[in-house]
């Protein structure tokens, strides 16, 4: 997929002007938030359940190296094959080589953000192997060559006419129709055909269990289960932070994940796979390959701040809570991960050089932090990134401060470090501001604050500051 994290502003403007986007943003995030809220109510103690989920992520990260070793050992004992991929190229190459060696001309895929991070579909296409997305929304987004709009509803914003047209064009549909059920059935028929005689299927992983070597997926359409059971060879791709210590931990994480993502107590399909088909079993893949992706995560892990981003379980609840996402939708974030989730993950994975807007496009309202089942302090992390950006931190590829902005902050801090300076500074500031208007409200400040004045006025500095009023008061 094309990475456009450096076009946040432009894409956001386009989306603000896009009536369809705006319409769906009035519906989807609010509805999902409400459903989440309701679903959390089904816990006997929602707050405790929330905290337990966060604690599980905390423990998983604290013990990550050890848990990964245990996971590998147990998965191997189950008969799975493990490939440690240092980066996207390594993962893509492994998967493409595997597909070739199995003589697969195409593969099917379950919806997964990690394969979007890899750009796997593009790589496979370059190798002459088609990859079919089998989640309905993802399938539509793929045919249209669009990134996912929302993690839960990747194509929710696409008009039905457009879906009809693309289905006709790609041979999914024979007769034009706008009936959603018929369209859905057409997609299903098309994809069922792909599952027949399937050589290789690819899925992501929601949770990996160290103590049992199990990989878990949760979904609502059954397509992931098809992907996991129909092919001869199954590849499950996971980022290395997905592992939790025990099956009990995994089950609790599923409880909070499903509630946070879709407001369900449990997704319709939860698949737990421990190794490939055993000798006495009739179903399942003959080979199970688990690709464990690093792609910069080990480096992130070394720092106690950025490590926090690895807590994320990709539920998407923060998207629904975010006021900015609620206005611009998923496209501006420009990569596999959108909303606050993307704002904490993408800068850590891709560096600040191309994600500078992502870390600033936040009002620090803290709603994401409040609802995050993984316990991420998004605003805290964004503030950390902003600091590293200003400092031109080499590890995160910070760009350094704009010299004028730095100077302004330096002067301001200098003025604020001494009472006498501050009085002079504030006098000068007030006088200067009052040059731009006589009334109580300013409509502009010349070249300054153009963004502010786009839609707002600003009170002119008071004739007498509080400081002066206090000095002159008579009580």
């Amino acid at each position, binding site marked *: 997929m094309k990475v456009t994290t450096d076009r946040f502003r432009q894409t956001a403007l386009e989306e603000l002007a896009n009536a369809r986007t705006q319409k769906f943003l009035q519906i989807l995030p609010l509805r999902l938030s409400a459903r989440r809220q309701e679903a959390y109510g089904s816990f006997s103690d929602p707050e405790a359940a929330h905290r337990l989920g966060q604690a599980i992520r905390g423990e998983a990260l604290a013990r990550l190296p050890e848990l990964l070793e245990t996971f590998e050992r147990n998965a191997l004992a189950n008969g799975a094959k493990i490939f440690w991929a240092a980066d996207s190229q390594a993962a893509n190459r492994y998967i493409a080589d595997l597909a070739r060696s199995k003589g697969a001309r195409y593969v099917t895929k379950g919806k997964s953000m990690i394969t979007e991070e890899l750009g796997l579909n593009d790589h496979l296409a370059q190798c002459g192997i088609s990859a079919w997305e089998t989640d309905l929304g993802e399938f539509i987004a793929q045919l249209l060559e669009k990134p996912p709009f929302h993690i839960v509803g990747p194509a929710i914003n696409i008009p039905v006419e457009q879906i009809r047209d693309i289905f006709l064009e790609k041979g999914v549909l024979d007769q034009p129709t706008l009936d959603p059920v018929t369209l859905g059935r057409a997609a299903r028929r098309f994809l069922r055909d792909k599952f027949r005689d399937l050589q290789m299927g690819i899925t992501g992983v929601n949770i990996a269990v160290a103590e049992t070597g199990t990989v878990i997926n949760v979904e609502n359409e059954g397509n992931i289960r098809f992907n996991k059971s129909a092919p001869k060879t199954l590849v499950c791709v996971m980022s290395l932070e997905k592992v939790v210590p025990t099956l009990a931990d995994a089950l609790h994480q599923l409880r909070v994940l499903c509630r946070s993502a879709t407001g369900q107590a449990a997704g319709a399909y939860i698949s737990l796979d421990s190794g490939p088909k055993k000798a006495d079993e009739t179903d399942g893949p003959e080979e199970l390959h688990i690709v464990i992706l690093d792609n910069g995560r080990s480096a992130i892990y070394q720092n106690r701040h950025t490590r926090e981003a690895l807590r994320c379980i990709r539920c998407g609840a923060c998207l629904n809570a975010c006021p900015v996402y609620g206005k611009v939708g998923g496209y501006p974030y420009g990569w596999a991960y959108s909303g606050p989730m993307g704002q904490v993950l993408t800068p850590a994975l891709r560096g600040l050089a191309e994600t500078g807007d992502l870390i600033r496009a936040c*009002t620090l*309202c803290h709603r994401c932090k409040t609802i995050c089942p993984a316990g991420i302090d998004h605003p805290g992390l964004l503030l950390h990134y902003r600091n590293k950006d200003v400092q031109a931190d080499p590890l995160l590829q910070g760009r350094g401060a704009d010299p004028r902005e730095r100077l302004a902050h330096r002067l301001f801090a*200098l003025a604020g*470090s001494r009472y006498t300076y501050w009085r002079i500074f504030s006098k000068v500031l007030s006088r200067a501001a009052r040059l731009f208007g006589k009334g109580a409200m300013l409509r502009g400040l010349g070249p300054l604050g153009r*963004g502010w004045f786009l839609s*707002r006025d600003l009170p002119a500095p008071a004739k007498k500051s*509080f*400081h002066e009023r206090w000095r002159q008061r008579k009580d």
Partner: protein
Amino acid sequence: MPRASLFIPCIVDLVLPGIGESTAALVRHVGHTPVYHREQTCCGLMAFNSGFRDEARTLARHFIQVFEDDATIVSPSGSCVNMVKNRYPELFADEPDWQRRALELAPRVFELSQFLVDHAGVIDLGAHRHATVAYHESCSTLNGLGVSAQPKALLGAVRGTTLVPFKGADVCCGFGGTFANAFPEISTALVAQKVGYFLESGAELLVMCDPGCLLNIQGYLHRHHPGKTAMHLADYLAGGLPGNPGRRP
């Protein structure tokens, strides 16, 4: 009388000094003597949020020196209080001595409504004011400090005041400090949404605990809906105190 030290944010000092006076009046009204250290400047919130931590530390050190001998500190700004209480300790993560001083200071700093209700123990100020009001939950006040019941209780106890339900009360108004200027279109969409809910609510006034949100919402109202007013809680309450009827609009 116990003393309460006024922490007047720089915006209030320079642009909205009336809020500072209202704060002093309320502090006095609940039996405390307001003290004002003229040496105070800025808490460093803007520098911190913009990533300039060295500069924020300079301001934070000054703040700590000015206020650390006070038993009780009160401020009419949820975001500035949040900065001092919750961000200073982290800002001094590598300077144990300053961090200790920040941690010792933190529990003594109160947002105004917090001070009135939790510290002074007063909900009914004996205020009168005839208005239908909606309460905007400023993000730092709500999510940073966990303050929400206090201002609503104070408003609810004002004779003649009706507090109406407010859809989207806890959705950000799009201020976000420099965000409003850096992402003006997104910020505008958010403040327009907030104002839309306000107009729908039927309230005459929109009341809040943060001068930042106030600049944003009032600035937008002034441009697009003149005649509609947003107001700081301090001004609303102080305006209804006995002997002070409707002192400020």
